[in-house]
């Protein structure tokens, strides 16, 4: 991970009006953070956290209510469509559902060709470029004439990745890019993403609820709860020493094949409250096992706990580190090594 700033998000807000009502959904409610070149930044949170809206804001699929998004020092949050277009080439998106994010009436060639045409690649060189892209994502270029329904879920996600890569972006935002895939296919796509990222020097923002995937891929993590950042920091720091009780609860709630069953008392109660009327003070206080009087009254600021590790909790220093994974059983580990060796180099 380099320290070169790519994007700077400042006090970004997105409120949605509820139809036929004066209610407002506080989807993203004042978040500030930076994205550095070549890093993988994971945005994690549950339903209602605002993670999907945040991803869409970053590529200007939705217009922010207020706040700034700076790309190389230029605020892009209010640019017209015409002025935004050349920038769109620099930031692309991969979606969760490879079934609904591809046009079923367009062949792979047409889908990829459209992106190339919009961004002005001459027609005669398109075919070659399409073949190159398909090879890059591990698909046989001879399949370019086929339609989405002729591919499996994993292959379709590869097509989505090829489409995102077609315009040579600098940053890719992936919204749950592997959540709809089976275990072994998910592993293929995760490997592909990390390989491509390294080869092309891409910056990657991965929006996900899956902490296993985050732990495997992310350099840094942003944890969102009801439209607010509750914690941000290097992945290792956040996992080993979370400084927000919500982060800790998420880590504890993620089923892990190599951890003893959790204690019932450690299970977080309740559900994410409605983003229409978020709780006062700290938004997490209604579910927080550590909450005290101040938490419902005063909103905690996002404060630095150690260099580049920030959290928004009045009692951040009291958060107990979650117990890490147990060492794997010996026999299991031996056999896993055998299977890894056997499959090594047989990717895709």
């Amino acid at each position, binding site marked *: 991970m380099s320290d070169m700033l790519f994007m700077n998000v400042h006090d970004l807000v997105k409120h949605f009006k509820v139809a036929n009502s004066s209610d407002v959904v506080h989807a993203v409610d004042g978040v500030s953070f930076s994205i550095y070149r070549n890093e993988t930044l994971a945005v994690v949170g*549950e*339903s209602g956290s605002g993670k999907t809206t945040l991803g869409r804001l970053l590529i200007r699929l939705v217009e922010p209510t207020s706040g700034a998004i700076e790309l190389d020092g230029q605020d892009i949050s209010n640019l017209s469509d015409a002025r935004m277009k050349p920038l769109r080439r620099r930031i692309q998106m991969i979606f969760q559902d490879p079934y609904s994010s591809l046009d079923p009436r367009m062949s792979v060639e047409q889908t990829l060709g459209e992106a190339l045409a919009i961004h002005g690649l001459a027609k005669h060189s398109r075919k070659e470029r399409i073949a190159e892209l398909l090879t890059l994502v591990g698909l046989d270029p001879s399949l370019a004439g086929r339609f989405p329904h002729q591919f*499996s879920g*994993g292959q379709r996600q590869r097509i989505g990745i090829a489409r995102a890569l077609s315009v040579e972006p600098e940053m890719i935002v992936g919204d749950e890019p592997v959540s709809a895939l*089976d*275990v*072994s*296919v*998910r*592993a*293929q796509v*995760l*490997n592909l993403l*990390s*390989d491509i990222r390294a080869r092309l020097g891409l910056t990657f923002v991965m929006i996900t*609820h899956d*902490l*296993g*995937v985050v*732990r*495997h*891929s992310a350099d840094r993590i942003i944890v969102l709860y009801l439209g607010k950042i509750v914690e941000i920091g290097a992945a290792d720091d956040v*996992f080993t020493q979370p400084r927000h009780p919500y982060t800790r*609860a*998420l880590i*504890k*709630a*993620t*089923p*892990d*094949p*190599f*951890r003893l*069953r*959790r204690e*019932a008392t450690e*299970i*977080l*109660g309740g*559900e*994410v409250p409605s983003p229409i009327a978020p709780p006062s003070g700290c938004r997490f206080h209604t579910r927080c096992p550590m909450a005290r009087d101040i938490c419902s009254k005063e909103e905690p600021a996002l404060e630095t706990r150690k260099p580049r590790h920030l959290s928004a909790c009045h009692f951040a220093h009291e958060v107990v580190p979650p117990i890490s*994974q147990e060492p794997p*059983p010996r*026999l*299991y580990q*031996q*056999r*896993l090594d*055998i*299977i*890894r060796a*056997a*499959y*090594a180099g*047989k*990717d*895709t």
Partner: protein
Amino acid sequence: MAGTFVGRPQEGVLMVETQASGASSSSPLNEKAALAVRGLTISIPTARGPLHLVEKLDFSIAPGKTLCIVGESGSGKSITALALMRLLHNALDITAGTVDLNGTELLGLSNKEMRKVRGAGMSMIFQEPMTSLNPAYTVGNQIVEAITTHRSLSAEAARTEAVRLLREVNIPAPEQRLDAYPHQLSGGMRQRVMIALALANNPSVLIADEPTTALDVTVQAQILELMRNLRSRYGASVIFITHDLGVVREIADDVLVLYAGRVMEYARAQDIFENPQHPYTLGLFAALPNGRSREPLTVIPGLVPMVGQFPKGCRFSTRCALATEKCRMEQPLLEDFGKGHRVACWYAPIESTRP
């Protein structure tokens, strides 16, 4: 045999053809079973004869225990669940096997008799509660209907019972929730309602098909905890279908690993996690992002073959990095390696030498 698994299976190792196995050896726990499935084969008829989607499936569950069925899309786990409930699509047939629920052979029952079993003897919850609940009726209506279908209670008594059930599944303010429509509830609450419905008539077996897959992790943790509690309180056996080995660790007593309609490995949960033997089971583990390393994940290339394209030998042989000619030609038997730990692999455990 227990404990040491080095070297090829020797002479004298118990070799059991799945279909022929005796009742007592079918559960890894060797206990009296609430549900015993023998040789279950689910087929789709074609002009060239039936194709088997699930073949010679054998398992049993002791009262109050949870069996997790693990496998990828296309492994046959969901149609197995539907077959047990006799809710298979018309195009599919159960062509062999028996399903014994507390001594009653379900496959021989008339449709009318089977309707009495569904809900009362065996009930089912699904991944997406929104599609299983009727959006046009209140939660209370649906629970009361489930109760009065199987029991003769007055409307008022059924309503009281419905409130009790909602309280059992930890729904806050159950009296008020009775009048809520499904769309007014969160995903987690809807899944709680589904569980309340499934438990309404105290079934001895509860089948749960990916019940937490669509839920947030903190809510998933709550639902898993709820299911653990209810299982011990109600004494129901649970068949829990999932693709998530982390969830398996949380909830399973026994684990059945299914691949392309065949059992690859069947053992106590502890044995699956500490002593996994089948290359497919290990491949599933190796494909999991585990946070310990950033190394590329192990990938099982390709996809589960479509029905009709199953290989002649071991179903997994087309994707197994360790497969030999024998694996491609002959289907391995589900062998008992001690303590009821069964593996269908010619070379189990995996470290045994190959020719």
